[in-house]
């Protein structure tokens, strides 16, 4: 099989399990973002793929070949570190040429490739500059070019954009994605920024506590989160308890929602409703009744906080699509089955 496969990978540091039985397949040419809170094991997983840490158990395969115990320098990969790790004693050109020099490529080939890469990262003519004279974004690009110099099979990035300011980060996300598509290289990025993951990835892998909670396309993750952790971690959501009686009539916060189905054997479940799916109406039958507690008017969107039977529900809408409301007012919250995602326990 072409691509990267992790099979039952485990990493233990003493008694602590940093990565717990991870299975993941990354087809050739896909862009994967590993997303999770700090300490969820995503960086450890990346370091094992790079060979910088050895798994305690399990196997890592690249294009069908078992590389679990292959030393890092024989894996032919490119990696960008959070600190970028540009060599301070070398110039921009020498940094990019380093993997070629280590492999004994002829000087002319090195120079040609460096020029090629410098124009690819929009820094032509920078070869002789010292690394210390570059801006943050430029260093970022040099680190990317250096990692791509040998056209690696695997391109790994550990929180690559975290040192950049917000605007530059957004621009680099787009640039990185376009570069990856142009080169068709299998890429794995570790990040804690969900916006970054949504922008760049073909597949988002949400991790927590050393385990993969869900691996799917960004839109699938957003629309169909597998559990309440994923639903809560990706974007904003309202998590509400739902109950079903014997006839599978579902009630949410004491109000029946016709048409909503829980799994056959479940009597209780958590449902997730994205704020933009919460529809505010006039109070009445077919809607939960609540009280407006706060209105956050952001200009482009308006967030309305509604208290329904002691639970806070947030609704987001554009100014035009929303009825005039004020704090303290009674309001109806309409829940339709198609916007409620039933989460597994």
């Amino acid at each position, binding site marked *: 099989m072409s691509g990267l496969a992790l099979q039952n990978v485990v990493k233990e540091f003493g008694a602590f399990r940093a990565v717990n039985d991870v299975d993941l397949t990354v087809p050739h040419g896909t862009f994967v973002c590993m997303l999770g809170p700090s300490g969820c094991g995503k960086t450890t997983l990346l370091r094992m793929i*790079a*060979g*910088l840490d050895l798994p305690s158990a399990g196997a890592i395969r690249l294009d069908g070949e078992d590389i679990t115990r292959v*030393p*890092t*320098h024989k*894996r*032919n*990969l*490119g*990696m960008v*570190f*959070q*600190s970028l*790790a540009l*060599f*301070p*004693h*070398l110039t921009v050109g020498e940094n990019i040429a*380093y*993997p070629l020099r*280590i*492999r004994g490529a002829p000087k002319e080939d090195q120079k040609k490739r460096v020029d090629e890469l410098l124009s690819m990262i929009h820094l032509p003519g920078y070869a002789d500059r010292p690394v210390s004279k570059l801006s943050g974004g430029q260093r970022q690009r040099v680190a990317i070019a*250096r*990692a791509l*110099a*040998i056209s690696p099979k695997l391109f*790994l990035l550990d929180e690559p954009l975290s040192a950049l300011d917000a605007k530059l980060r957004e621009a680099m996300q787009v640039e990185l994605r376009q570069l990856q598509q142009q080169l068709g290289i299998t890429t794995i990025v570790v990040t804690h920024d969900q916006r970054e993951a949504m922008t760049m990835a073909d597949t988002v892998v949400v991790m927590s506590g050393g385990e993969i909670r869900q691996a799917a396309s960004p839109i699938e993750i957003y629309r169909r989160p597998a559990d309440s952790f994923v639903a809560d971690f990706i974007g904003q959501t309202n998590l509400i308890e739902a109950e079903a009686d014997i006839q599978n009539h579902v009630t949410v916060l004491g109000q029946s929602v016709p048409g909503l189905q829980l799994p056959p054997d479940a009597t209780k479940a958590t449902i997730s409703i994205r704020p933009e799916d919460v529809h505010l109406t006039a109070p009445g039958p077919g809607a939960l009744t609540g009280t407006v507690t706060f209105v956050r008017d952001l200009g482009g969107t308006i967030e309305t906080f509604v208290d329904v039977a002691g639970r806070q529900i947030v609704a987001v809408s554009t100014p035009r699509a929303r009825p005039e409301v004020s704090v303290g007012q009674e309001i109806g919250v309409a829940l339709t089955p198609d916007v409620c995602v039933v989460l597994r326990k």
Partner: protein
Amino acid sequence: MRREPPQTLGDYSPLLFPAAMLTIFFVVPFGTMIAVSFFQREQGGFYTPAFVFDNYQRFLSAFFGGVLGFSLMMAIAVAVCCVVLALPFTYLLTRMARRVQIVWLVALLSILSLSEVIIGFAWSTLFSRTAGITNILVALGLMGEAKALTPSFAAVLTGMVYQAFPYTVLVLFPALVRLDPTLTEAARTLGASPLKAFFTVVVPALRNTIVATLIMVFIFALGSYLLPQLLGRPQHWTLSVLITDQAIYQSNMPFAAAMAVFLVLVTLGLVALTVIAGRKGETA
């Protein structure tokens, strides 16, 4: 951080104390020594103030030139050996667990607390025929019979490297601790074996530190005068030994002073050359 240059005379006041100490304990004695180096030696007596070049003239002979050359060579050899041994050692030490590091650093510091005399006698016992390390090799069947390894150049070198090694480690340690460990990891992901990564990333990135350490150990080794006498033959004696001999046993203070001044000048010249060479390498 932005620093303002000192504005008033008062701003310089923190410098007064060190300046005074340096003047009283360094500049004045050194000035006296320079003056004495031009004095006329009284045969059988001490010396009288004068301005003669006799002492320097006497120094410019093949014998003293040879001793000077040997002293410099010995100090360079000690410096190179120390750095070559200490750099990989310290690099590995910085990557060990904190507890292991502390044990090693305490052991190294305790070597520093030993006096040169003890180190000299300890090594001369270890290198002796009757009680030395060759007896262990004989017991292991690696050697036919025990023999004395001292006095010899190798014995002097070993003793001096042993003495200077802890200083070398302590000077290199902070720089190696501060070295970003992801630099070597990056080199490895880019295709360098751990050994190659050490030589293509760690060593060049620490070039200035290495040069500074070489200079420090060189100067430290240049002043050594007990170990060459304890572990070496007369031809392994350094200029420091001869200076002591002239000053204390021959009572020829002007000549001793002249040799000392010469040694200082040559040392400063060599250090300056190293620094200039280092600068050139940096801009190239």
